[in-house]
């Protein structure tokens, strides 16, 4: 029994519900926000440490002492633990950022409880070893995201939310359907138990059929081609801290689930399933990056890039070699840091200039060089420029692609990298290099006056933290690499997971 496995779920639950109870005091909620996410971060780092140092590399807790496969188990393997750390990190960064940027109305109507509970859903999804429980977590985070998305009630938020809600519900229902069919076929819900039970099914093709349902359900969540519509339609509508949180975490849950399912459960016919993943990945990269090329609104550009980057994550899973898997996980990690930070910087730009439109902002390089440097660190990282974090991810994936002689995806991945750079440079050239356009100078000045240096400092704090991380993840990659390779090796050998969950080594 490893109680630390449950902490990433319990901590946000406690802080979230307390924040609801204290709904009248914004100050209390702010404190709970920072303390709660901070505690979550500490707990998740402890979890990762304990997982990594454990001889099996897998920790489990059978909730209610009902042993697997009968009760619900939470399982922390390296993949899950790494994802939890990233979620907690993002939560913490956004909680701090929110102190300076979130309006009191947003706080009054539940911003902080929603933040906590979104994190609990995300962490739960990363840790659970039970497919139905995964559905529940996905719903928790989804409904939390629904509520965050509409917080403010702007017209655009409503329009975006309708698409977001509808398409995500469709995906949840597909997931639920797939879970039901899985239970109907196997009589179990425990992932480790499913490994053996799937193998016993005579009609193996049927397992692949169900795999396809999961694939579609999670691909919608992950915003993969051609199922991503909800994302560009909605991500740019809420306040930017919320967009950053979404960008960092939500699609990653879908990607994580695909990694989990298509390494643990559905490896019967990789020639078929993973080939499909590869195609989806390629198209996702291209459509996403082209979408971004079209826009001149910072958040829209970034939103389409989320889609594009998801393609790389698919590529890692699809190639399915240890290096590719490690590269894919690394890509997720790096992307959480870089992409969220870009959203946060977009928010800073908004607070300094009063607009998200590139055509209406400018002059930031001259005035705020540090912001520029932090932007460059994140943007170039996203574009895969060495030695920043994105490069290492791209390097691992391309190398895996070259080694697998998958030339098509290698070419696409490289080309998309270049277009990503194009978009990032577009933001750079317009927002930082260009002079502030006269037509919008007045509003910009007005905005800049209203933002206090103290708030700006609070906003810079998480931005700087993440920018440094984007650099460190690249330059100081070796320890990260070791963890991720170990994670990838675990994924390539499901028996480790199965033994840890069902072996009863307690």
């Amino acid at each position, binding site marked *: 029994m490893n*109680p630390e496995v449950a902490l990433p779920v319990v901590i946000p639950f*406690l802080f979230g519900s307390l924040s609801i*109870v204290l*709904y009248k005091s914004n100050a209390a909620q702010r404190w709970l926000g920072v303390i709660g996410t901070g505690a979550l971060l500490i707990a998740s780092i402890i979890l990762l440490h304990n997982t990594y140092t454990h001889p099996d590399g897998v920790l489990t807790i059978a909730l*209610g*002492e009902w042993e697997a496969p009968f009760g619900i188990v939470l399982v922390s393997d390296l993949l899950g633990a790494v994802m939890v750390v990233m979620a907690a990190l993002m939560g913490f960064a956004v909680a701090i950022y929110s102190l300076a940027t979130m309006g009191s109305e947003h706080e009054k109507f539940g911003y902080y409880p929603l933040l906590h509970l979104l994190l609990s859903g995300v962490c739960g999804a990363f840790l659970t070893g039970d497919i139905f429980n995964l559905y529940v977590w996905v719903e928790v985070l989804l409904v939390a995201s629904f509520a965050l998305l509409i917080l403010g009630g702007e017209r655009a938020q409503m329009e975006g939310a309708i698409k977001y809600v509808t398409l995500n519900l469709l995906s949840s229902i597909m997931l639920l359907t797939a879970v039901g069919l899985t239970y109907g076929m196997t009589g179990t819900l425990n992932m480790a138990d499913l490994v053996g039970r799937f193998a016993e099914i005579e009609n193996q093709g049927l397992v692949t059929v169900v795999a396809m349902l999961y694939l579609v359900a999670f691909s919608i969540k992950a915003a993969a081609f051609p199922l991503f519509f909800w994302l560009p339609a909605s991500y740019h509508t809420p306040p930017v801290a919320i967009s950053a949180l979404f960008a960092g975490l939500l699609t990653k849950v879908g990607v994580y689930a695909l990694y989990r399912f298509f390494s643990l459960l559905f490896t019967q016919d990789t020639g078929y399933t993973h080939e499909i993943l590869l195609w989806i990945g390629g198209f996702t990269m291209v459509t996403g990056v082209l979408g971004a090329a079209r826009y001149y609104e910072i958040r829209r550009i970034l939103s389409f890039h989320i889609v594009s980057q998801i393609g790389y994550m698919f590529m890692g899973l699809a190639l399915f070699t240890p290096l590719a898997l490690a590269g894919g996980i690394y890509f997720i990690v790096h992307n959480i840091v870089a992409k969220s930070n870009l959203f946060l910087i977009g928010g800073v730009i908004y607070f300094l200039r009063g607009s998200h439109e590139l055509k209406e902002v400018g002059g930031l390089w001259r005035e705020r060089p540090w912001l520029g440097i932090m932007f460059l660190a994140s943007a170039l990282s996203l574009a895969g420029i060495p030695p920043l974090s994105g490069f290492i991810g791209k390097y691992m994936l391309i190398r895996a692609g070259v080694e697998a002689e998958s030339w098509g995806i290698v070419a696409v991945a490289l080309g998309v990298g270049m277009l990503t750079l194009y978009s990032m440079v577009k933001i750079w050239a317009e927002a930082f290099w260009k002079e502030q356009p006269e037509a919008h100078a007045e509003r910009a000045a007005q905005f800049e006056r209203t933002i206090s240096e103290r708030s700006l400092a609070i906003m810079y704090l998480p931005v700087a933290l993440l920018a440094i991380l984007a650099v460190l993840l690249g330059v100081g990659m070796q320890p990260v690499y070791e963890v991720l390779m170990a994670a990838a090796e675990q994924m390539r050998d499901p028996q480790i997971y199965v033994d840890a969950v069902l072996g009863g080594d307690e």
Partner: protein
Amino acid sequence: MNAMDSLILRTATRFLLPLLLIFSLFVLLRGHDEPGGGFIAGLIAAVAFSLYLFAFDASGTRKLMWMDPRPMLGWGLFIATLSGLPALFQGKAFFAALWWPVHVPGIGSVTLSTPLVFDIGVYMVVIGSVMAIVLALAEAEE
């Protein structure tokens, strides 16, 4: 005057409300052994309060409920989560159920348990949530 004002409904509601509430408590407490449980019980209570809302008005219903729905659902969530923690102090996993049989004079042997506490949390969440939604909608209408 309320467009929905119906003497018959109001009077019937005064009569039905206690019945529905006691029924909901009943369903809550026996749920572990017979069909029922915190969720269904909470829905029944919520239906009862909604009935009151329809017969009377939102502010009356708020007064009737004694606790604002939002903190109620917060407390419910908090209690339900907390009910998983005592097991930790006995060295067991989260949500390991603990049972305390208690003899209450006049009622007999009553078993208190963490699942029951959990179910009570569920009950509060369901009432709080449904009523938060319904009341907000009704107030927006008024």
